[in-house]
């Protein structure tokens, strides 16, 4: 189009267009709810109303035959034990219950605030075995790894969701303080130099967990009243879940039964 002509017309056009064209609408800015960078702090737990869950891990079926660990490749390990050492996974207590079952609140506690405990959880390497065999920490809680052995170990957790690391600990070396940033059930831990050594670390978002002992019982304290799903994890016999409702200050019993 001829430009001069166009300019001429545009004067008329502007008048006409006054009717036809609504003025440019000021674009409304769509206000998106800004995602809060930090997670909601959660409700603080009222310590006056918390309850407790206790229970027993029973076992039915044939007891697995536990293999003897041969520590021959490191005399330092051999010397620490006077009797043969058996593999811990698959162990059944004398009374027919299971030790080393990790019981934790799988669901139902996320609405509360669970500040990271300041005290550390200790994992010892003694006689080329981890003590304890199953251990729980809260997210970001310190795991204090020490060695009571006169040989070099390396601590090698093999997580799925956390970052993997593998660090050497020579005899007399300072303890390793480590934290895990993400909850994970369970992280196996090994020592590459003593391949029989095995521990499991349960990392949870709250301190509501327990490991069954040599009598097969466990106690989880400090549960605010509410509905929960409890998870129970055994290295050999799988995992289970149970729902439980805890009333204020109530002591509930939840038993788990694993089959061989």
């Amino acid at each position, binding site marked *: *189009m001829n430009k001069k002509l*166009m300019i001429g*017309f*545009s004067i*008329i*056009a502007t008048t*006409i*267009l006054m009717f*036809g*064209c609504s003025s*440019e609408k*000021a*674009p409304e*800015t*769509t206000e*998106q709810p800004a995602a809060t960078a930090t997670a909601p702090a959660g409700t603080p737990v009222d310590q006056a109303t918390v309850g407790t869950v206790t229970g027993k891990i029973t076992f039915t079926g044939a007891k697995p035959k536990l293999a003897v660990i*041969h*520590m*021959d*490749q*490191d*005399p*330092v390990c*051999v*010397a*620490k034990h*006077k009797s043969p050492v058996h593999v811990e996974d698959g162990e059944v207590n004398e009374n027919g219950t299971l030790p080393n079952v990790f019981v934790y609140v799988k669901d139902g506690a996320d609405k509360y605030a669970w500040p990271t405990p300041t005290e550390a959880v200790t994992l010892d390497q003694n006689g080329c075995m981890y003590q304890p065999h199953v251990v729980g920490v809260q997210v970001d809680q310190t795991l204090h790894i020490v060695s009571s052995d*006169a*040989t*070099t170990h*390396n*601590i*090698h957790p*093999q997580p799925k969701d956390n970052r*993997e*690391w*593998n*660090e*050497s*600990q*020579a*005899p*007399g*070396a300072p303890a390793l303080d480590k934290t895990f940033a993400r909850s994970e059930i369970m992280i*196996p*831990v*090994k020592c*590459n*130099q003593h*391949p029989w050594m*095995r521990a499991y670390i349960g990392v949870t978002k709250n301190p509501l967990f327990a490991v069954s002992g040599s009598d097969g019982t466990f106690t989880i304290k400090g549960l605010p009243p509410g509905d929960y799903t409890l998870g129970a994890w055994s290295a050999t016999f799988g995992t289970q879940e149970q729902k439980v409702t805890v009333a204020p200050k109530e002591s509930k019993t939840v038993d788990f039964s694993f089959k061989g």
Partner: protein
Amino acid sequence: MPDAPEKDPIVGRSLAGYFVIAAFLLIFSLSWSLYDEFFGLRPWKGYERRFATLYASLLKKEIPRQEKAEKAIENSPDYQALEKQVKDAHDAAAPQLTQIHEQTAAIDGKIAAVLGTLTNERARVGSMIYVAEHTPDGPGRTSLEHNLDMYKKGPFTLNGPSFAGKTFTFEELENEFANLQTEKGKLQQQEGDILKPQGEAAKKLRAYLHDHLNGLSAEQLRGLLNKAETMAIEIKQINIPDAGVVDRCESCHLGIREPVLLTRQNMGGDKDPMSAAFTSHPDMELLQIHDPDKYGCTPCHNGNGMQVDSVAMGHGEYEHWLWPLYHKANMQAGCQQCHASDMVVDHAPELTEGKRLLQWKGCIGCHRFQGYDSEPEDLVANQQQILQMETERADDLRNAQRDIDAGDHAADNATARQDYTDADALRVASSKVSMQLDQLEVKAKYLMMGRKKVGPDLKEVRVKIRPEWIPVWLKNPHAWRPTTKMPRFRLDDDDIEDISAYLWQTAIQTTLSHQAPGDPVKGKESFETRGCMGCHSVGEGANQVGGWFAANLTRVGEKDNYDFLVRWIHNPRERTRPYCPFEKRDITDEDYKKHGLPPYTFDLNHTKCPNDGHEMVVEQMTVMPNLRLSWDEARDIASYLETLKRPDATYAAAPFMNNPKLKEEGKKKIRFYGCAGCHEIEGMEDEGRIGTELTAEGSKPLEQIDFALYIREAKNEDWYSHKGFFEHKLAKPEMYDKGMIKTEAEELKMPDFFEPVSSKVTEGMPDLAPADQKQISELTTFLMGSVTSEIPQRYWYLPADQRRDVQDGWWLVKKYNCEGCHQFKVGQDSVLMDIPRYQTPEWKDQLPPKLLTEGARVNPEWLAKFLSNPAMSDTDTDRDGVRPYLKVRMPTFYFSPIEVRKLVRFFQAMSSQPMPYISPRLDPLTPKELEMARALFTSRAAPCLKCHATGDATHDKFATAPNFLLAPERLKPDWTKHWILDPAMISPGTAMPSGLFKTQDGHNVFAGPTPPIFNGYTGDQADLLVRYMFEITPEEQRKLTGLSANSMKQTTEKQEGPNAHARPTLIGMLVKAH
């Protein structure tokens, strides 16, 4: 009064009404055209205005947020400490600075005073010199010179506070000025030195803010805001003349390379249609590599870059534009035109998959594609050259003989000499040809080593397969084995009988050596741990475990002869008979016998035809490598596989197999369907590819693509496009035969690669499983991108440096499925890594090594040897040369030297290592250092020998790491040092622990207690160990294990008492062993 004229019937009628209407029409059309001019045809203006508003409001929200973040950082103790440093430095410098400034000011005053006089006097002196110089010699000149000298003596008086009437000669003035300048320079230098600490502290402060602030700073954001608010509403254009690119895409896609992440949510929300145009480019890293100012938009994305009239036109989605914007699902097609030489294209996983599928699925069996599977063509060319040169040589020799004869009977000596010279020239020429022929034969051998077929050798069908299975398989391979690569040819019963009969009757007839049954339990363990599952799977349906690269072996026992299966597992490359490409037939024992030679056995060193001396095909053309298993283990695995078959499977007898009347018809059909593209078939070794070449298939104009009777339907259903054609063709090739009047021979031959899961058809597409749809989409992406590029070649990715080696290497990595076992890049899991067995801590250590930094780790010469012979031995082959402790085995691939070279260069290039590699000379250990290294190696605190193999069988039972003896030849010292300092940095998840060393006084020191001999040693202990490792010899290692045993024994006795002797210790056994 005159009569009123007769009323003109035309004039008399008022036309005002029409004019009004016409005027309105005119105004309407005018305003319409103006509207169109300014708005209708310029939709981008609206986009630009809206973008500017939205972007500005986004930035306005972002700026306070970022200011807050900056404030938070500024309030952090670290920042404030740094800030204090700046202030302290400033304060510390202040008094000196003030002094210097005062001094400078004083000097400046003096300079000004001097300069005021000096400038004038210089001019005057200058003019006097000029006048004197231009006066001829004589008294006049002398007088002038005298005047000059007198003038220069001055005196010149300087006034002002600093000089207070002091007088100077001209020279003194000049000197005074120079001195003052020097003094000022010194002061300035002093000032710089004083300001330096402050400047450095301020730099640290800025760096701290930059390192801790996520995203752009508030100041940068304000800059962007200013840009957005003052943005001119105009067409934004990229113009690249040599590529013919004029792209105005950014007139609407305004945020595509803004440094702030723009999403639909923060740019107007999902409901605003414009917000889709305003987002950031989804792969900013990719955009950084391909700067739009240099590459434009449409070369990668297609569409009509010049058009801005409407969205559809800009995207090229209209009838008159041939190359519309790539569909979102096929966007990566655009990478292909410049990345045709790559097998693996970073940032384009779908295209990469498409490229791999073309090879893996066997498309290249029928379709030529530049860059793929070039060996057969190269071999044909090579063979022709050989034949031609042989003729040439024969001619030369014959002519030479003629010349000699002529010379013998020549009339005179001169002629004879000339004849003999000619003969010699011909003989020398023929010897040159002979040498060239040798080279061509070597080339043929290497090409044959690299030549692979997608499917198995059907000449072996009689020794391998049970006859009744063949028709079942041909009918529908997917029905028998759903995961197979073999497509379904639409064969009727006659076809099947004919084809089966030909294959059966032409196959090699021989009896394989009989194999005793093996142990299936052991075989299962071997199958699951030797690495078979990196490629193969077992189990059907949901129970399937293992790799996808090779066949699912669940039903192999139903079809394979056990004896053959054992031979195959023992060495899949073994062939019953070699094939001579010159005689065009299989060579039998008779042929060897004729020449007094023993019968053929699998051997890559004796590959020449006994009859004509040419290179023969002596290997099966399978990519399956030789795992170097014992015959026993091969029998165990075969026996295990036999147990997986369906117990109730029955196959009808196939008597037609031996009907000689069917054979000829079968041959025709095999040729028709192009079976020899993927299989070796008797009499069809030289068959070419029967399909159309696909290298530039995406460039074919749509009109030339045969939609058959589907054009109307495709247009209605919106799949009349390259994408639509490829997808339908791949999903159901025979659909384009529908309704066409064709003879059987004219029907489309392309077989069905995918089976629908139901009979439902949507827009012509059969109902396919999601995994199949994905493959079709990936292949479509690749084919759409396979075009004759219109972009100048300089844009193509054809690197001449190390990146070329990376490019070449990936073809081989994909060809042999190295990724089944190995990891090459972080995030790329091998098949084995994801298999359930390898999830436990025990089995994770049994995974094949990661190859993330392989080029930096190993000496390329060693790597070449290892790749050729992973057992690292010619006699003891049932083992892994580097990691004998692994159950999984690095197999022998019988790589051709060409392939070995490519792989070695690939690894070096992947780690940016220069080629060739020159090993650095390490300082030899002093006797004391040797003793120290030994002490450290054998100390309890240093765990080296707990995991690393020593070659002693008892010890190596527990070994989980390679023998140090390999280090000098295999490793690079620099890498080794990095490795022992922090192995997890190099190979995440490795069994080798970190934290073995700590830093002390700038040196690496062993983290555990060191033996007493280390007291006072100031050297780097990591270096010491590396130097020791590169000196280690078998004798030294024996000494070491002995020492280690002693130290262990002593410890045990000393610390733990006699109880320790209750068990035999490993080290005790070691001592006995030596």
